[in-house]
């Protein structure tokens, strides 16, 4: 459990909040590059950490992320005309460039220079790995561009999707490090999903429903090692990575692409679940890409024209009670992403952590909260939070079989960091 003040502290990310400050100190995925496919294309509304912004791309191809509303009388610039190196408000014609600077106020004499006095708040927006990233913190603390491996491998080796999750970011992220739910909630998928099935590790997973966990602090956050019995007295370890504040990476299976998530607050009651899949040494196959586009693995299908999942709370996630009873899926909801989302959204927009009864196997979640709270305290004293340094971002999850006495953190040292040109360690 958490006390109410602690729960508030970790779940609120609007301007001026401590947790909001931590998110704002690192680059966050804002939208997919494909949402702004060409110069002068229609702008896109983006809400992040409770700030309403507008993403757009000008005539020269400059990306812009600006205040959504016109400085004149507050019209949403989503209705704006994207023309000749700027976005023009359709109400009275005020025009802004990609930095948010007002460059034309038609009602005022040009010579007066009035427009120079008007500037919309704007944030940098940079493409990397098919994702447009933004940094919303103080300019003097802006770190170098993100180095997460999925975003820096060649474009044909990685696939990223995002979906709307109608819950606070923290309960979504906690699902990403809650290793003990996999053998239950997702048990139906391990051997059926085209992006999971056929790995030796799955047999260990299913053969040994009660893994033993080892939670180990890492420089950027924590490793969560799930240990199961393998042959000859060896252990099969699946090591998940969590990097503060909101990056999680699931251990690989066989030669399947490796995947993970970012859980980015939209406001305190909604978040973006970003899901990436990549391989280091080979392009994703036709077959894999088709499966990802169809919403398999950790991806999902959509309500057409939106990023809201096709299975959502308005249709009870298309729960199939007969399938639940038959055991086709453990919960009756289809698909890994929606199995998680349905349950996490069912907790309510911000789960009341004063009522929970955590047990020993929840130490991954307990440690993640402890690290976040500790990092917030240190940040108040001027320290840079974990997750911003390049070394923290160059991390990997791993699946390895090790002799019984070896600490996985030591034995899998190389497997847990980026090795240029080498695949993930996987079973």
């Amino acid at each position, binding site marked *: 459990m958490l006390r109410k003040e602690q729960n508030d502290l970790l779940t609120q990310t609007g301007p001026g909040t401590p947790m909001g400050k931590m998110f704002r100190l690192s680059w966050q995925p804002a939208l997919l590059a494909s949402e702004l496919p060409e110069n002068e294309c229609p702008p896109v509304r983006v809400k992040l950490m409770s700030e309403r912004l507008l993403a757009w791309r000008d005539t020269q191809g400059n990306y812009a992320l600006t205040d959504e509303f016109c400085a004149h009388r507050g019209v949403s610039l989503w209705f704006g005309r994207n023309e000749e190196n700027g976005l023009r408000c359709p109400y009275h014609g005020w025009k802004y460039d990609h930095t948010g600077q007002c460059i034309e106020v038609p009602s005022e004499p040009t010579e007066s220079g009035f427009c120079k006095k008007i500037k919309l708040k704007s944030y940098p927006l940079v493409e990397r790995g098919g994702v447009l990233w933004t940094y919303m913190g103080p300019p003097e603390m802006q770190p170098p561009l993100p180095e997460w491996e999925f975003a820096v491998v060649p474009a044909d080796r990685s696939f990223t999707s995002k979906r709307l999750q109608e819950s606070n970011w923290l309960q979504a992220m906690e699902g990403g490090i809650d290793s003990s739910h996999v053998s239950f909630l997702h048990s139906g998928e391990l051997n059926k999903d085209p992006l999971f099935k056929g790995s030796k590790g799955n047999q260990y997973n299913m053969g040994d429903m009660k893994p033993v966990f080892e939670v*180990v*602090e890492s420089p950027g956050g924590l490793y969560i090692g799930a240990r199961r019995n393998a042959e000859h007295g060896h252990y099969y370890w699946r090591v998940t990575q969590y990097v503060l504040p909101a990056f999680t990476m699931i251990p690989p299976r066989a030669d399947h692409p490796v995947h993970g998530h970012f859980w980015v607050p939209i406001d305190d009651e909604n978040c973006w679940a970003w899901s990436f899949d990549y391989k280091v040494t080979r392009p994703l196959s036709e077959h894999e890409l088709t499966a990802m586009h169809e919403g398999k693995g950790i991806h999902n299908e959509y309500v057409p024209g939106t990023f809201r999942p096709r299975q959502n709370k308005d*249709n009870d996630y298309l729960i199939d009670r007969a399938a639940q009873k038959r055991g086709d899926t453990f919960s009756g909801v289809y698909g890994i992403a929606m199995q998680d989302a349905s349950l996490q959204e069912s907790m309510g927009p911000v789960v009341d952590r004063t009522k929970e009864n955590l047990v*020993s196997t929840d*130490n991954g979640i307990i440690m993640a909260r*402890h690290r976040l709270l500790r990092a917030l305290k240190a940040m108040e004293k001027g320290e840079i939070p974990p997750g911003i340094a390049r070394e923290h971002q160059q991390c990997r999850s791993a699946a390895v079989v090790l002799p019984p*006495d070896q600490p996985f953190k030591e034995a899998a040292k190389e497997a847990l960091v980026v090795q240029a040109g080498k695949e993930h360690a996987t079973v």
Partner: protein
Amino acid sequence: MQSESARMSSAAEARYRIDAPNSQPRAVKVIALDAPSERVVKMLAERKWSRATFFTASAFGDAPKAGESFAGWLSDLAGRTKNLVEEVDAADLVVMVAAAGESAQAASIIGEACSLKRVMTTGLILGGADKSDEALSKTLSHLRPWALMLVVASAEEYVEDMLRALRA
């Protein structure tokens, strides 16, 4: 019409989650395995807890010497001998605290008692970040066979955070 899930997962409906307690206090026994962790455990023992109690096994080795009884393999923080098996029997969770680099040898005897009584065990290793991997693996190798959940933490405060999170 709005679906059941849509209506019920709203903020407005969240207010109606009933406020009745949904659990009873758990008995957690926290046992220091060595002198450095005994210092941490002593500090914790002075704070207010629901049903956590604190012990030390730092003076004991990995097996009773001739004439020593297995039952007395534990002492409270004032140095009074306690019956290990009885204490374990009354526990919902046993937390063993060890400092990285220490031998944690009492873990086997405590672990054995827990496995006899089917009690959940958690091992906490403190100071893992500043110790060499070799020192850490020494502690790990004693704790791993007996801890169903193992945590390697860098900050002492983790012990308190974890116990509070578990409502101890």
